[in-house]
């Protein structure tokens, strides 16, 4: 699918400047639009064919001209023709559409990840660096961006027409979509799945910036703690560290470098530890017991908000050693209650006592 002749440039320029066509602002847009023109073309051909037949026959065989009807049984050859030609065209559409679909829904491995939480009636975006946004999304251009999305209540749908991408945001399950913006600007962000009273107010803007501007924005908008740092606090305050300490005698499995690895479960199946699995394992641990461990972990359903879960997932994702977990445990054993007094602001020591206080998104509640 290589498209770059002059004609194409001209068409794109003409269309994107007309009010009848959305801006092309992502890497996938030209491919989507090419497919759209193809579909329009075969539709036009089909419609014109039918129109010619109907109007042509209406003129040629109207009663005044053709008082006598000639009875015709049918024709297998013609039936075959108008079965096979549409079928062939539809098959081309099928293959072309499938290629696009797989491209849009299979993110590249180097994509930068942003979390989206949808709720009635706002979009919350959480950047790993700790930038939190509501009803807006800042992204750099020329870089693949993956969105990991979840809904806190009902079905929503995250749609950016200028990027030609959209994905349902579902309660209780991560869904992902990716895009690579190619032109700076501010674009519409819509919720396209009917979600109640203010459905049409669940809109926002996507701000595509040059990488430099994005860096400046990110530096200026951070809440001070990254998602992983929030996750670390939550990990300690929920007491996760007492079992998942990484020691050989620990009651829970070692979580260091667990992200992306293949895990053997107690029921004999193997799974890949991705975002969705980690989230599920926190909420429904009894159905995701690792082989060799007892099913003793309690459920955290209703105790951690979706943002809190994102923090935890992001923390586990970036957990490369258990050193700090053990440090935290040691500190809290040595001086329980005093850990919070020291070194506020820097997350070197994260005792349970001060967890959540400095975190911008307060964990421990549902349905905020």
């Amino acid at each position, binding site marked *: 699918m290589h498209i770059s002749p002059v004609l194409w440039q001209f068409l794109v320029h003409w269309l994107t400047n007309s009010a009848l066509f959305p801006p092309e602002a992502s890497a996938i847009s030209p491919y989507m639009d090419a497919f759209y023109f193809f579909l329009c073309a075969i539709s036009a051909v089909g*419609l014109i064919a039918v129109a010619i037949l109907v109007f042509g026959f209406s003129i040629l*065989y109207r009663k005044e001209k053709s008082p006598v*009807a000639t009875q*015709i049984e049918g024709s297998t050859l013609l039936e075959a023709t108008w079965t096979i030609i549409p079928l062939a065209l539809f098959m081309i559409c099928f293959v072309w559409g*499938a290629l696009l679909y797989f*491209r849009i829904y299979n993110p590249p491995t180097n994509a930068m990840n942003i979390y989206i939480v949808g709720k009635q009636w706002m979009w919350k975006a959480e950047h790993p660096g700790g930038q939190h946004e509501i009803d807006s999304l800042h992204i750099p251009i020329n870089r693949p961006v993956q969105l990991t999305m979840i809904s806190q209540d009902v079905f929503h749908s995250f749609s950016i027409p*200028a990027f030609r*991408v959209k994905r349902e945001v579902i309660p209780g399950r991560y869904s992902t979509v990716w895009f690579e913006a190619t032109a700076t600007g501010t674009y519409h962000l*819509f919720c396209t799945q009917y979600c109640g009273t203010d459905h049409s107010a669940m809109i926002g803007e996507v701000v595509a910036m040059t990488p430099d501007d994005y860096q400046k924005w990110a530096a200026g908008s951070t809440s001070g703690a990254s998602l992983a740092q929030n996750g670390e606090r939550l990990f300690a305050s929920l007491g996760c560290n007492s079992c998942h300490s990484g020691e050989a005698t620990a009651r829970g499995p070692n979580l260091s470098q667990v992200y992306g690895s293949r895990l053997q479960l107690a029921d004999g199946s193997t799974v890949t530890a991705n975002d969705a699995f980690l989230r599920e394992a926190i909420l429904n641990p009894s159905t995701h017991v690792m082989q060799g461990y007892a099913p003793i972990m309690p459920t955290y359903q209703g105790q951690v908000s979706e943002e809190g879960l994102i923090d935890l997932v992001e923390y586990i994702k970036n957990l490369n050693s258990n050193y700090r977990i053990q440090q935290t445990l040691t500190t809290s054993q040595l001086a329980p209650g005093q850990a919070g007094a020291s070194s506020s602001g820097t997350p070197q020591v994260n005792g349970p006592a001060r967890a959540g206080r400095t975190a911008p998104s307060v964990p421990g509640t549902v349905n905020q």
Partner: protein
Amino acid sequence: MSTIVTLPNQEEARLPKLSYLNSEYGLKSWLLTGDHKRIAMLYLISITFFFFLGGAFAGVIRLELLTPQPDLVASDTYNKLFTMHGVIMIFLFLVPSVPATVGNFVIPIMVGAKDLAFPKINLLSWYLYVAGACFLVYALLNGGVDTGWTFTTPLSTHYLNTHVITAAMGVFIAGFSSIFTGLNFIVTIHRMRCPGMTWFRLPLFCWSHYAASILMVLGTPVLAITLVLVMLERTVGIGVFDPTKGGDPLLFQHLFWFYSHPAVYIMILPGMGVISEVISTFSRKRVFGYTAVAFSSVAIAVFGFFVWAHHMFIMGVSNYSALVFSLLTMLVAVPSAIKIFNWAATLYKGSLTFETPMLYAFGFMGLFTIGGLTGVFLGSLGMDIHLTETYFIVAHFHFVMVGGMLMAYLAGVHFWWPKMTGRMYPESMSQLAAVTTFIGFILTFFPQFIVGYLGMPRRYHAYPPEFQVLNVLSTAGATVLGIGYLLPMLYMPWSLKYGKIAGSNPWQATGLEWQIQSPPLTENFVDIPVMDHEAYDYEWLAHKTEHEVTTVG
């Protein structure tokens, strides 16, 4: 092989002394009737009422969308308007439209029977329809419901405080009415055909109703189960669709669309049957490729059951299952294309006249072709990502359901009006209505394809100002469309008293229903007919007319 058909002189026609309309008098004789023709009339009156109710909601929606700001009604009211518009139009108008009125009236006569197989179940089906409608009207009068016609969970189960259970109950009950209609048609077509009426001598109208009936009987129970689960979730919280209780919200989508996609074919197949009859009659020619058209109906019914997940391509179904459903969706588009080309080929070497039913049928062919082809856009996986949940999809299904089905319904009502009432509708007036409807329709819904590709989401109360021009066009079109629909509402009742007397076969059509008096006797046939010719045999008709002593009346 040629036939000259001359229409009978209607000046000589007289209304028959006795017919199903005057065999009994009084309200009770109508409300307790077992006569399929009277039940068809009861249906005709009730669905017409709900069509105009649903249409009024559409009118308010279009008026609100005239401006980008939410200024005419409140957001909740707007949500209730499009919900009630959808629920009423789909469950109380489109699903019963052709089958319960025209189909109910002519199918027994077409197969040469005195009534449907189960006349009392037929009456029960109308009462169930009315009961379901009463629930919906009750919900409406008490503040309405705002789930969207799709009753999507968990919105409908946990997040809304409107009359969801009442409305779901209404749809549940109305569903049984359509199951009974389907059951009656299946048994009638299997068991009640007159001597000589083989399967391949059946009019194509019967074939398409047979296919639609299979869908009604097999699909509707799944909708009933789904709605019961929604009601149980709301009342006792069984949690089948609730992720926090181990349920799956996507399961609702699967169950709902397992009915609601076939429901599209329940709606369109009977319309396709009408088009076959109308095109053949006004071309004075056998339908081109009878078997292909007949089997394409069956193919649509069979494939129609296996494409439901194409409503869920962006909802996180596995990529590979999306692939399979997209492929099957492409396959279901083929039988529709076959039908369109066969109808077009029927015109070839015909002797065409352009009475109102034919104009509506041409409208159907054009609009349904656009509707079908834009369905290919949405069935193509990648394209669906951008187009689904926008106005593109709204335009697409209105082209199929309103441009296609409603045109076919109006074609059918006009076509069989002389048979039902014994009188003609005013021809030039109705031709004007047909053309007005067509123009109004294009103007209303074509701009929505464009605004959909621009990305305007459906079910939006307010929208970005750059979409206004296209929305104004759409609203202007809706006004014209409204006039197009109001015209028949005026001249059809007028024709009951002042219309020309039709005579038994004003179109010189070949179906058995045109060989008996108009309006028919309660028992349809004095003697059970014997079918000794193929369907659409205009030579047989010419021969019969030649040897008949009395030509009309």
